[in-house]
């Protein structure tokens, strides 16, 4: 049929008999555009994610950039951030003062926990499996090599940053009153960090770890009064089978029990203790009045006289 498109339209309208009623297509079109407008309007609101219900439910307050109260609440009402005070000394955020070293050390501890847990999925602390598991990690596990490397290098880095952190604390005299005790907590953390490294060294069960731990625990044999070859050890009845080294290794040589003990200390014992000490460390920073500085300098002439009690 040869019909004019205009005609057919008119015909359609005529047949429906209702001139003002819009066609289905138009209605759909209009509906869509209204929906679109609404969506755009709502999306504009989502542009500020902090105003969303989801955000507010998680963070409990909006982090309005300009409102001081909200900025404080952003810190105070967050379980992770409330480790911080809401406000700090304006110069304390200058990088050259703390070097961020304590914070970086803590972050490395988190990285180590994360990669460590992943490694635990692939590692059995037994003489038969340990070394093979490392080979498996290196060659077959997707990203296994990267995982192992990251755990290793983060551990080395943590030793370095802990030292640098301590060095900074020394240089700024931050161990002085009232932070003496927190310094002591720090010393314990340093030792725990070193012990974590040491216990981890044995776990691949290769020559490197085996001999390092052999040399290391041989020193324990010489502990005064606790080791079988230490001063006063033999006099107290200690032998290679009941001294402190035996207790550390679970045997008289570095073998399967030593591997298991290292593993448990490394993955459970020491991290647990270290976490507790870290919690105390951070808590004490707050209780001692926050970071020590940069404090106003005190002059020699203002040194208070010695208090005689």
């Amino acid at each position, binding site marked *: 049929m040869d019909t004019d498109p205009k005609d057919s339209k008119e015909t359609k309208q005529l047949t429906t008999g209702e001139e003002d009623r819009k066609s289905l297509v138009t209605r759909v079109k209009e509906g869509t555009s209204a929906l679109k407008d609404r969506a755009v309007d709502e999306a504009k609101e989502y542009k500020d994610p902090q105003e969303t219900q989801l955000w507010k439910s998680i963070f409990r307050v909006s982090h309005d950039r300009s409102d001081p109260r909200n900025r404080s609440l952003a810190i105070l009402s967050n379980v992770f951030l409330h480790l911080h005070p*809401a406000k700090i000394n304006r110069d304390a955020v200058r990088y050259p003062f703390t070097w961020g070293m304590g914070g970086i050390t803590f972050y490395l501890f988190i990285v180590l926990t994360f990669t460590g847990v992943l490694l635990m999925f692939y590692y059995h602390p037994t003489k038969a499996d340990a070394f093979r598991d490392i080979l498996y990690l290196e060659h077959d596990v997707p990203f296994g090599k990267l995982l192992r490397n990251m755990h290793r290098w983060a551990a080395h880095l943590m030793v370095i940053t802990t030292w640098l952190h301590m060095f900074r604390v020394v240089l700024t005299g931050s161990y002085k009153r009232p932070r003496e005790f927190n310094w002591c907590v720090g010393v314990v953390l340093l030792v725990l960090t070193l012990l974590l490294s040491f216990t981890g060294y044995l776990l691949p069960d*290769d020559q490197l770890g085996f001999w390092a731990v052999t040399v290391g625990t041989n020193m324990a044999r010489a502990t005064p009064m606790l080791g079988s070859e230490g001063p006063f050890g033999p006099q107290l009845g200690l032998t290679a089978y009941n001294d402190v080294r035996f207790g550390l290794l679970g045997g008289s040589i*570095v073998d399967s029990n030593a591997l298991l003990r290292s593993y448990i200390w490394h993955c459970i014992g020491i991290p647990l203790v270290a976490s507790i000490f870290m919690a105390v460390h951070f808590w004490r920073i707050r209780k001692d009045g926050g970071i020590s500085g940069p404090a106003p300098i005190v002059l020699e002439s203002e*040194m208070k006289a010695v208090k005689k009690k």
Partner: protein
Amino acid sequence: MRRFVNKWTILGVCLVIVALWAINVQDWHQLWVISSTPDNIPIVAMLALVPFFTWMGIRQAVANDRLIEQLEADPKLSKTHHRKVEPWRPGWAREIHVWPYLVRIEFLATVIVTVVLFIWSITLNAPLEEPANPNLTMNPSKAPWYFLGLQEMLVYFDPWIAGVVMPSLIMVGLMAFPYVDSNPLGNGYYTLRQRRFALWMFGAGFVQWIVLIVIGTFIRGPGWIWFWPGQTWDHNAVVFDKNIDLHDMVIASSMGSTLGLGFLGNEPYYGIYKFIFGLIVVTGFFIVGALFFHWLMTVDFKKMRMPRSLRPRELHSALFPKSEFEQKILQRTSLLQYLTFQFFAVSVLLALPVKLVLRLAFTIKYVWVTPWFNI
């Protein structure tokens, strides 16, 4: 003398030493093998990190010290000054919000550390040796680098001292430090001038630790034998143990025979003479060491000069001029604080380098030999 000591002469001398050393290196490959061992890379990194952060700290300390000097000289200014080198204007808030000013720095730091770790882990593989084999001794068998200080100490002391007593003393000594440092100044800001002695002591400990680690890493080869950096590690090298005990050395010396000290070697009652001899030597060491630290603690180096005669009074005023400031600090120090400090200073900070020199330069094994322990 002072005129010639500046950064250029120091740099020059260092360069000459490095050049002399480089000429004498026989085996660059050996050096490369040691420093490129993956587990040693962190030390190489530390060789850059430690100077960098030392510089960063000292730079701030120098700036603060300049301000301190200025304010000490100008009491009026010290009344109004805000007492920091960081800029400050009236009207500025003294505190700022942690969100976002601190949190964003922390976030940035985690990103940077993560990136560094990824790059490091992609480019460098963690070492893995052959499976553990108790029948095949690794030679040299080295602990991870951060324990090499301890392992190196085994050369100078018996295992119970190097492995147990010294680490414990270092730990307890570190914990005791805040309680024996009676200087109230320099709390929360970088300064060299107000904390001269404390920083010297920490510095000495820090440097010793680093030196031991460097010796343990770069110098000790197979059989824990001393190979200079650049010398080839000879796996067949044997060093004959020439070390002898101090009392034997005294007996054998011409002075010993002139003074008739040969009886020290006699062995009635389990070597009671040896025992008393060693006890005297060690006690003497503690006394001399304590005097040394006392001098270091109180002296004013700026006032020190060459004595004009050998009369005791002249010697005393020339070599032991007292620093007024340190004198004030000493007055604040309780006897317990003083003695605690002296104990740790002499038995760790001094004993370690002294024993190192005695062993390496004078081949002395023990200074105090008893039936129960040897020192």
